[in-house]
């Protein structure tokens, strides 16, 4: 660590009382009164109960008592809340019984948000939030100041912005988001999907979800149909009336083939339609500092993904499509837009050569040849499946022995579990080249996570009763952003190897702050 700070500064930092403690604006209590309005709705059932019980005289006192108690708590919370601008951090103390002392260093504040509601505007109050990139802010509500006077808020923002401007060595990658709206023509087109590719991708997205939709719809239109869709007896009646039953009896093979063909048709058609609607005219281009992705038939979206915000890449495929070399590329980004898509799909369906081309600007790449791949011990991967298979088989055999034929299901389930376990062995493996960690996982949906050491925020080493016996630990890594597919962990690593890996991982932390 290139730290030029004098050791003597440490005790001083504890006592930097340059600016006095501040409180939230007393007008906040007025806001609390206003907020009580919606809250007291919850009181209505209680009040009604009191009233119905015959004691209407208690309703008003109960209401007043509730208001007083709520106000009392608001006041207590206000009285126990104070904040202060330290010489390098905001300090907030809060909590009535559980006291909390929060330090938010200026260096970590990406942005200061000032929010003014209708009432806030009337009272000249502002709610100040600090964007630090930590996940917890906002959800517990005490990450910010709610509320202080507008002047204080503006002063606070100036202070923090001024601090940000001071250290010139601060990484310049924060201005990236602003660079997004460049004109599309100057961007280089990296990847786009032709209708032909869409068709192929759709075929691989075989889905019987449409049947579920039909089923759900039939529930709704139950009364409109003259028969129960899910009642086989109705179908038999129908068949008997139309004479289909005798035809099916006579041409059993043809009927069976027709049914399967119909299912397949529905499945493929669903896949093609869904793929076409979401990925129509998919275009991924590279701007000055960000990817730009446009796609969609009915809803066309245009998303900018700043390169500097990309934390990890995921190459995913399926156990059938990988035979033809088709893969999908996603990236996990610090800025995830919206709740639906937590990671960003850069390439929905392409050959590896295309994926490499898209990966290149991110500085990430697929694992090079000649890496030493580590496979967790077989037992560490298989014990769960084996245990399940054993239990299912024993249960099934027991049931059969007692003369219950459904016990066969247990045996079948056990066998299936055994097969899946056997196939899965060796599919989870990892390697690292000293700067990037590569993790493969899965057999049905194999996926590769490409995680640069520099983006690891924290590292857990965990063990449990089974792993301990095998001399192994699980490694779990904290990575900014979120992804459904990425796996930032290895299920089982021999202890010594795990600690060595962790040391290598965390040694890279100085590269990028």
């Amino acid at each position, binding site marked *: *660590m*290139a*730290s*030029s*700070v004098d*050791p003597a*500064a*440490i*005790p001083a*930092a*504890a006592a930097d009382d340059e600016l006095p403690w501040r409180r939230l604006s007393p007008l906040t209590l007025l806001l609390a009164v206003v907020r009580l309005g919606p809250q007291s709705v919850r009181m209505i059932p209680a009040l009604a109960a009191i009233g119905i019980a015959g004691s209407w005289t208690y309703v008003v006192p109960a209401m007043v008592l509730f208001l007083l108690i709520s106000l009392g708590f608001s006041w207590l919370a206000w009285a126990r809340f104070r904040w202060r601008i330290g010489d*390098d*951090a905001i300090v907030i103390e809060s*909590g009535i*019984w*559980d*006291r*909390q*002392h*929060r*330090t*938010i*260093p200026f*260096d*970590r504040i990406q942005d200061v948000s000032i929010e003014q509601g209708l009432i806030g505007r009337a009272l000249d109050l502002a709610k100040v939030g600090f964007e*630090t*990139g*930590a*996940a*917890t802010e906002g959800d517990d509500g005490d990450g910010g100041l709610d509320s202080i006077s507008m002047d204080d808020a503006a002063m606070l923002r100036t202070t923090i912005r001024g601090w940000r401007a001071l*250290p010139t*060595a*601060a990484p310049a990658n924060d201005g990236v988001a602003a660079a997004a709206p460049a004109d599309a023509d100057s961007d280089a087109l990296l990847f786009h999907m032709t209708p032909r590719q869409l068709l192929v991708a759709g075929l691989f997205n075989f889905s019987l979800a449409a049947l579920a939709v039909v089923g759900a719809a039939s529930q709704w239109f139950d009364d409109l149909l003259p028969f129960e869709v899910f009642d086989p007896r109705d179908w038999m009646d129908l068949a008997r009336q139309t004479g289909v039953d005798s035809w099916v009896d006579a041409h059993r093979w043809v009927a069976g083939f027709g049914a399967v063909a119909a299912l397949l048709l529905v499945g493929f058609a669903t896949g093609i339609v869904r793929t076409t609607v979401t990925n129509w005219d998919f275009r991924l281009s590279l701007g000055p500092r960000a990817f730009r992705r446009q796609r969609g038939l009915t809803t066309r979206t245009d998303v900018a993904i700043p390169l500097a915000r990309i934390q990890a890449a995921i190459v995913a495929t399926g156990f059938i499509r990988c035979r033809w070399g088709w893969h999908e590329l996603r990236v996990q980004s*610090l800025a995830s837009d919206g709740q639906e898509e937590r990671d960003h799909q850069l390439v929905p369906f392409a050959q590896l050569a295309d994926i490499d081309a898209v990966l290149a600007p991110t500085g990430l790449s697929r694992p090079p040849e000649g890496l030493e791949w580590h496979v967790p011990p077989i037992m560490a991967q298989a014990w769960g499946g084996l245990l399940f298979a054993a239990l299912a088989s024993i249960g099934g055999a027991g049931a059969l022995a007692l003369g219950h034929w459904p016990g066969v299901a247990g045996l079948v389930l056990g066998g299936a579990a055994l097969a899946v376990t056997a196939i899965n062995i060796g599919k989870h493996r990892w390697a690292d080249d000293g700067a990037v960690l590569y993790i493969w996982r899965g057999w049905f949906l194999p996926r590769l996570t490409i995680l640069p050491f520099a983006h690891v*925020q*924290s*590292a*857990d*080493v*965990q*063990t*449990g*009763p089974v792993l301990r016996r095998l001399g192994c630990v699980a490694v*779990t*890594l*904290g*990575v*900014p*952003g*979120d992804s459904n597919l990425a796996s*930032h962990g290895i299920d089982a690593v021999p202890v010594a190897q795990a600690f060595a890996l*962790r040391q290598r991982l*965390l040694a890279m*932390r*100085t590269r990028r*702050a």
Partner: protein
Amino acid sequence: MMEIAQSELPHPVPVAAESLLEPGLHPVDPAYVAVLRIVTLLNGVPLAIGATAADQLAICAVEGPVWLLTVAAWLLVVLAVTLLPSRRYARMGYALGADELRVARGYVFRTDTIVPFVRVQHIDVGQGPVERRYGLSHLVVHTSGTHNSTVTLPGLPSEQAAMMRDAIRQHIRSDFA
């Protein structure tokens, strides 16, 4: 520089005899056992009372085996209050390294976490009512990310928690240099 800071930390606890930590880890304050005990008691007794009520009312109504649930619930509470706290204490350890914080906890499922100071986004020092009685606090370190983004180290004497916070904070400050 952090070695100096570390030596400044009051180490009030001579490594307890029953401590089962790997070398390099410090135990937390022994008063943490009492805190755990009281907190478990405060949480467990209402649950046990609830279980008893459910047992006496619901199980009675369906003429199931009465008392089974009651006895089990109270036994669990007694075990959780008497045996578990000292075990949890014995396995809870931390190390304030030159540029990282290490927290290890648990035995049956043991977790050992390292957070580099450089990665810390903000820091909390919290104190509940029970902790206050024993002069303890807990330190919470927040990193960005969704998994594992908060790391909590309980059972620290308050002034030590504050010193650790300041030590980590110094690092965040010097990080951009």
